[in-house]
Every structure is written in structure tokens, then in C-alpha cells.
């Protein structure tokens, strides 16, 4: 498995896309911290990047990579190797390269300019988001037959989680404005990895005081060790669930 992961990583690096992506992130992060006098604002700008660009790049690159190495996967399947090894070496290889790109591009500058708890939350949240979208891309790739369809599905999921979901939450909140929705909104945010990561970071930036009673409910939940633990477990579940289902399908798939 180690060997296959190594080949996958080698293949990705040879592609040079990941290197370009790393440099782009690095430049963006450094310029955010340099141009904003207040590191808080730098973090907030970075948060926007993490919530839009990183999921998009992760999900599309992973899907394309999966289909580009489809022949390699077929070749490996002909060898005495389990489907599990093939699938997870591909997945872990991608996680490693995109994760490293994120850690170098965003993690390093963040920890240098703002090595506090909030910087750490931002980086760990962003890393888990990267992994989540790699996992989603794999699921999208195994349930479809061709590359275009897979990219379509992956993009649809990204669109849903990034834009539609929040719009729908807003709609529900508008329509149910007469009811106490504090706990419900906590639940809504837990069901979307992007919202979860965003709120985790916002709580660290201490905007909860702005949020009235919702803020109090959120602060109680997210500032307790339990709350942080549960949210990270939820984020991890967002990685593990698609990977698991993807593997179930892949192991039975006629390649």
C-alpha cells in the first residue's frame, strides 16, 4: 500500500498542478496577512478562501485525477492486490498531496502570523474541509461511468454545500421566524461541513457576543471542549462517510 501511495503522490507532483496550487495559496495567505494591519481580518479573508476556493479545487482536481489514473487503477486491479488497497492508496495519496499543499500554502503563514488557537482552528478546519471534498469527489467518481458526469456530480455537491444549503437555511429561518430556532440552527450548521468549519472559526474570533441568544447557544456549545470535540468528530464523519460508501461501491464495481 505504501508503495502505491508513493506512486500516486509521485504522479500528482509530476503533474505540477499541485505545486502551482500550493504557491498560489502561499502568495494569497501572505498577502492577506501583509496587507491587513489586523491579523483578525487576515484570518477572515483566509476563511473566505477556505470556504470557496479550497473545496472547489479539491473536488474538481480529485475527480479529474481519479479518471486520469483510471487506466492505472485498471492495471493495478489486474495485479494480486485487493480493491481496498487500490482505492485507499489512491485516496490517501490525494489527501496527502492536497493536504500538504494546504498546510504549506495556508497553514504555514497562518501559524507564523497568528499562531494562536484561532489560527490553529482555521488550519485544522480547512484541512478537514480539503479531505471532505476529496472524499466527496471519490464518491462522485465511483458512482458515475464517465469523467464529465463525475465532475458534474462533484460540482453539484460543491454548489449545494457552498451556496444552496445556506440559502435554504435562510429560507427556513425566514419562514419559521416565529419559532425558537436557536437549537435548530445549531443542528443546521452541524449538517454542513462548511458551516461547521466557518462557525468554529468565527467562535474563535469571538463574534458570538454579536449574535444575541443564538450566539449564547452557539457559544455554550462551541466553546466547551465537548462542543469542539463533537464538531471535529462531525467534520471527520464528513470525510469518513463518503470514503466508506465510495469504497463499498468501488469494491463491487465492474471497472
Amino acid at each position, binding site marked *: 500500500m505504501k508503495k502505491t501511495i508513493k506512486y500516486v503522490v509521485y504522479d500528482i507532483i509530476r503533474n505540477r498542478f499541485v505545486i502551482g496550487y500550493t504557491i498560489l495559496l502561499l502568495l494569497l495567505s501572505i498577502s492577506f496577512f501583509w496587507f491587513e494591519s*489586523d491579523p*483578525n*481580518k487576515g484570518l*477572515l479573508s483566509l*476563511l*473566505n478562501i477556505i*470556504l*470557496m476556493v479550497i473545496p472547489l479545487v479539491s473536488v474538481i482536481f480529485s475527480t479529474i485525477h481519479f479518471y486520469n489514473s483510471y487506466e492505472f487503477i485498471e492495471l493495478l486491479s489486474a495485479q494480486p492486490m485487493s480493491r481496498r488497497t487500490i482505492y485507499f492508496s489512491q485516496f490517501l495519496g490525494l489527501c496527502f498531496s492536497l493536504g500538504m499543499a494546504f498546510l504549506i500554502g495556508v497553514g504555514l503563514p497562518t501559524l507564523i502570523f497568528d499562531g494562536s488557537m484561532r489560527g490553529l482552528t482555521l488550519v485544522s478546519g480547512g484541512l478537514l474541509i480539503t479531505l471532505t471534498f476529496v472524499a466527496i469527489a471519490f464518491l462522485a467518481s465511483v458512482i458515475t461511468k464517465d469523467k464529465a458526469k463525475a465532475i458534474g456530480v462533484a460540482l453539484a455537491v460543491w454548489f449545494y454545500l*457552498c*451556496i444552496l444549503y*445556506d*440559502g435554504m*437555511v*435562510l429560507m427556513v*429561518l*425566514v419562514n419559521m*421566524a416565529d419559532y425558537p*430556532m*436557536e437549537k435548530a*440552527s445549531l443542528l*443546521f*450548521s452541524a449538517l454542513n461541513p*462548511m*458551516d461547521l468549519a*466557518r*462557525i468554529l472559526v*468565527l467562535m474563535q474570533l*469571538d*463574534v458570538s*457576543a*454579536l*449574535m*444575541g*441568544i*443564538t*450566539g*449564547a447557544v*452557539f457559544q455554550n456549545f462551541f466553546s466547551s471542549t465537548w462542543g469542539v470535540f463533537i464538531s471535529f468528530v462531525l467534520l471527520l464523519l464528513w470525510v469518513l462517510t463518503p470514503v466508506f460508501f465510495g469504497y463499498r461501491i468501488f469494491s463491487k464495481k465492474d471497472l
Partner: protein
Amino acid sequence: MKTILICCLFILSLEAFSKNWSVKTVQELQKALHESKANDTILVAKGNYKVLNLEITKPLVMIGQNQPVFDAQFKGEIFIVKSDDVSISGFRFKNVGETSMIDWAGVKILESENVKVFKNEFVNCYFGVYLSASNKCWIENNRIIGTPKEEQTTGNGIHAWKCDSINVFNNYVEGHRDGIYFEFVTNSLIKNNLSTKNIRYGLHFMFSHYDTYTHNIFKKNGAGVAVMYTKHVTMKDNFFDSNWGGSAYGILLKDISDSDIEHNLFNSNTVGVYMEGCSRLKMGKNIFQKNGVGLRIQANCDENNIHHNNFMANTFDIATNGSVTFNYLNDNYWDKYEGYDLNRDGKGDILYRPVSLFSTLIERMPQAMILLRSFTATLLDKIEKIIPSLTPENMKDDSPRMKPNAIEAFNFKV
């Protein structure tokens, strides 16, 4: 001519004969207070004095040498001044008891004029300095540090009720209910004070007309500063810092009218300024930075002029709860302004609406705050900027500045 000269000499000699009493024990102190004549001086030597309810009923100068400690052992209060022209300085007042019937204080001044309280320390006092129906008093250079308990069982640092022409300078107040509390206090000057870590308000006044507050710092108080039902107030060069919490405000203005709020710095407050029922205020040259909401103007405010302020790095610059406003905004700098300036006169060519759709939305349903800084929220704000429909139509700055207004540097001497 000669008689006048003799008269003068006689008066001078009288003055010279005003006696000095040196006091080393409580008995001596009580004897001195009892037997002294008007205008005598009582010098209290360094030491620990267990005293209770000392009444001063004639003009006296009380001087503590090397900060003698007056300890009330939580049984009552210390000085009760019931005479004009008293001066109290150089003491350290300790352990004034707490009761719900009487407001016990380190120094209580009742119906007197021209009383000076300066260079004292108040530690663990229920109330620090308490003035009631007194005029022309000076409260200067005191350090007042309390141990906060609950709002009901903690007194105010400097408390004044129904006074006129009070001067409160260079005091430090910490750990009380309200740092400085005024009710029915008029024509007074409050300058260079630092009020911090009080459990309720750093400064709290009601019905206190024609007062001036300058160069004060109000920092990290439980609920910031609240001022109510007052007209003709001047607040200049003050610093409202880090009043952060669910119901904390840099400054809460309720029913304030015809006042000037100029050249203040509001930094890191949940809400920089909260205005309710305010009329004809002039707010100019203030800096609002890093606040959750810079300025909150409720719809019942009218004819306030907000001009030449700098709004920087606030989550929301302005919030309001109504759709119609009768306030004037002009020549402010907004860091979120995205307009252009073709004729290069320093003013943006398109007007700026500081109330974002998202903040209007939150007004109607606070739960929507979970979408703060999400893509959806940003998108909504952008759409609203192009086609305004929900945000208050006339809450607008017609001449937003392209660059921050030049505002003189703050200098706080505390």
C-alpha cells in the same frame, strides 16, 4: 487707611492662628474632631485606625501623612462630611460595610459646598466617594478599587446625586457597580478618569444636564457606558475600549438630546454607540474600529448629524431597526465603501448605504447570524447594493470620503 490695615493684619493673624492638630490614635482623632475650631488642620500620622462614622461638621482640613489606613471593618462608613469647605487628602480607606438600607461610603458628602477629596485610596469600600445635594466639590486623583460581588451588593465608585458644579479629575475606579454614577448632577466636569472592570457601567448618568466629559477611558466594563435622559452633554476625547459581551455597549445613549459627541475612540466594543430616542446630537470626528456594530441608530432617533467619522474594521458599520430614518450622515470614511472619485475632490461620487442587507435581515431574525461571513450573506449584500429594496432608503452618506478623515491623535493622560 490705618484701620483697614490693622483689620487686615488682624484677619491674617486669625488665619495664622488656625490650629494644627497632630493625631496618632483614634482617641486623639476623635478629640481633635470634637474640639477643633473651624478652619483647623488635622494631621493624621501613619498607622492603622479602626474608625467608624466620623462626622465632620465644620470646615476642616484633614491630611493623612504617609497614607494612614482608616479601617471600618465592614461595620459602617468612615467620613461623613456635613460642612462646607472641608478638604480630605492622603488617606487610605478600607473595608466599608455593605448594607441595603444606607449607602455606606468611604467619604460621604451631604449638603455641603466646596469640599475637596483628593489623593486618597479606597479599597473594599461599598461606595467610594458619595456626594448628595452638594455643590462645587472636587474629587481628584483618587484610586478607588472595590471587590465586585453582585450588582445589588456592590456600590458605585464615585456616586453623586443632585449636585451641581462637581469636578471629577484623574481618578481610577475599578471593581465597583458603576465606576462613576451621576443622577441630577449638572454643570460638572469629568476629566482624565480611568474607569475599568466595573461589573455594570464604567460611567452611568441620568438627568445630568450640561455636563462635560473629556479625556476619560472606559475600558472592559461589564456593560460599557450608559447615559440616559439628559440634554446638552459634551463628550470629547474619550476612549471606549473593549466593552465586549452580550449586552455591552461602548456607550449606550438613551434619550439624549442637543449634545456633542466628538473626537472619541470606540475600539473593540460589541456595539460602539447605541442610540435610542436621541435627538439633535452632533457626532463628529470619532473613530469606530473593530467593533461588532459600529453605530446602532434605533428608528426613534431624529435629526442627529453624524459627520467626519472614520469607520474601520467593524463587522457592521451601522445597524438600525426601522426602515425610515431622519438622521444625517455626511463626510464619513467607510472602509467598506467601494465607490470612485472622478473629480478628485476626496469625496466618493456615488453615495454609500452603510446598512447592509444582512444586518437588516439579522434585525428581523437574529438566528440568521449563523450565516455571518458565508458566501450567501456576501451575495445578498452585493445584490442589495445594486438594487436596494430592504435596507433603509435614506440611511445614506452622500459624500463618503475616499480616504480616512484626518483626526488629531488621541492623547490620554491617565
